[in-house]
């Protein structure tokens, strides 16, 4: 209720009822043709996923004989286990998970504090501050790369997950501040007035009124920050050089083209790279579609 920006554009697939009833009965040849085109495009988009899935469970000889389109003649797990052990996959999963979780929590916290001051507190010069903060999100990361590399090297955080955590907390909270500040700008005034009449301090109002009411928005941000951080590449690549600190995308990418990677092991590596995000997508699908659209209209 207090977060119209995130709840209003709820994705409703079904148009008004009577309209649908009138249209549903008449399907022309043209309609079926358009459906066929839409399904065909969907297939084209899905084919790479299906190919990777089928070929990750083949032996290289099976691949050579049956080609890429056949189903595996026998389930073969050596490609996946070989790659799994070679990169110490559980370790990489943990690194990605740890970095993304800490970033998501910290960035949501910072976004909330910033947005509290900008949206509710309406501090002087807030428009310029929001623009400045948004800059952090739009800059190409290359422009920060070398100075950051140098700075973190100086303080001994080079090749540490904490360097990456600090950097992405700032970058993600930039977007969060931008979105939340406008959400908080339309926060129901009566609630704030009532709380302040009851003698609540600013800190109490933030935690007891604003936080619980904006929790749906905050959880969308949390999920987004988690996935965005999981998918990041350039900064983890340059800052996490040690094998023990690498994230999933980095570990998988740096091994491509390695001479020990045969055709089905490479496929297995792609499968391991896409599985985690696929799982997140399936779990959070509704929240995600809602969030993407909210981010765009804001």
């Amino acid at each position, binding site marked *: 209720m207090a977060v119209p920006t995130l709840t209003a554009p709820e994705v409703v697939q*079904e*148009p008004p009822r009577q*309209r649908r009833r009138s249209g*549903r009965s*008449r*399907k022309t040849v043209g*309609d079926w043709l*358009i*459906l066929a085109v*839409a*399904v065909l495009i969907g297939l084209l*988009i899905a084919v*790479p996923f299906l190919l990777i899935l089928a070929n990750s469970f083949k032996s290289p000889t099976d691949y050579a004989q049956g080609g*890429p*389109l056949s189903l595996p003649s026998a389930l073969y797990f050596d490609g996946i286990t070989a790659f799994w052990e070679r990169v110490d996959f559980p370790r990489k999963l943990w690194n990605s998970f740890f970095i993304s979780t800490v970033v998501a929590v910290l960035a949501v916290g*910072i*976004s909330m504090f*910033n947005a509290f*001051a900008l949206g*509710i*507190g*309406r*501090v*002087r010069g807030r*428009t310029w501050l*929001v623009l400045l903060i948004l800059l952090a999100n*739009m*800059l*190409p990361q*290359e*422009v920060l*790369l*070398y*100075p*950051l590399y140098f*700075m973190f090297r100086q303080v001994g955080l080079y090749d540490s997950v904490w360097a990456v955590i*600090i*950097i992405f907390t700032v970058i993600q909270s930039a977007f969060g*501040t931008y979105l939340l*500040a406008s959400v908080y700008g339309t*926060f129901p005034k009566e609630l*704030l*007035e009532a*709380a302040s009449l009851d003698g609540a301090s*600013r800190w109490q109002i933030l935690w007891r009124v604003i936080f619980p009411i904006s929790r749906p928005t905050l959880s969308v941000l949390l999920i987004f920050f988690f996935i965005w951080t999981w998918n990041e*590449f*350039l900064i983890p690549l*340059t800052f996490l050089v040690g094998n023990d600190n690498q994230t999933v*995308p980095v570990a998988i*990418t740096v091994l491509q083209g390695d001479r020990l990677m045969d055709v089905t092991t*490479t*496929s297995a590596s792609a499968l391991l*790279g*896409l599985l985690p*995000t*696929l799982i997140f*997508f399936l779990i959070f699908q509704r929240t995600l*579609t809602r969030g993407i659209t909210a981010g*765009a*209209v804001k």
Partner: protein
Amino acid sequence: MAIATRSKERTARPTTSLIPGSSRNSFWFYLLPGLALLTLVIVVPLLWNVYLTFTSYRGIRPPEFIGLENWVELFGDTTFWTSFRNSVAMIVAMVVVPTVLGLVLAAMLFDLIGRKFGGRLASFLRATYYLPQILPGVIAAIVIGWILRPENGALNQVLAAMGLGGLQGNWLGDPDTALPSIMVIMVWVQLGYPVVIFMAALQRVDPELYEAAELDGANWFQRFRAITVSIIRPEIFVVTLTCAIAALKVFGPIYALTGGGPGTSTIVPAYYAYSEFFQSQQVGYGATIATALTVVIAAVSIIFVLVQTRLERSEEAR
């Protein structure tokens, strides 16, 4: 995007906080952690990077001031111009094609498939289109890169099996096909984003408008152009702007698949800057490329916002 905040403030310029009895200045305390981190991680490195563009710095001995030499070199550097020409290709693949195709697909799904075949099917198709968007960019590139493998890749094998062996190619290794291959990957990655956003925007379109237009004898394309496109124009702007910025920043897929090659056929500014930093150890020059890229991104964003405001004004005046 910035427009939304600005126009909102123009209507009313409140000078007090939303909490009665709390002065605006007392809220600065809450900005301290955020602004301190922003200064440390964004502002200082950004300014430092600009300083580096005026130096010769190879990463070991301290930077040596050389004035505008890097910038002069940049303007005469064919690799730099090639990298921006390739950025234009990325904009075609990540902005133009997905936006146009996304508009048509969103209209098809929402208007026709959702209405005549049920909303379930429409949202299932939408989720399928969106699938590649959820992957890390490098992983998406590796998935398609695997299909394009030269010696035993899926595409080449299928071509051979169909008797089209003559069409086989070293897709990512041949200067003629490397850039188009990357473009195909980026279309695949990007398409779902406009579809999802446009479909949500289409809910604002009043069905009665369509029915009225239909009665007036407007065909599907006329209705699409006159009603759909004009109503969801704000979303079209947001999509083209965010995708254009993303296209200018592309790095992961190039790193994972071609390293800018063969030769410089797939080099992009972000990858060029990276290779100057860490492969050639020309930090000052790498910083110059990165700064030039930032200037281009800022210019593109400003032009977009200006055009959008102007269009909105002329719309209101009508």
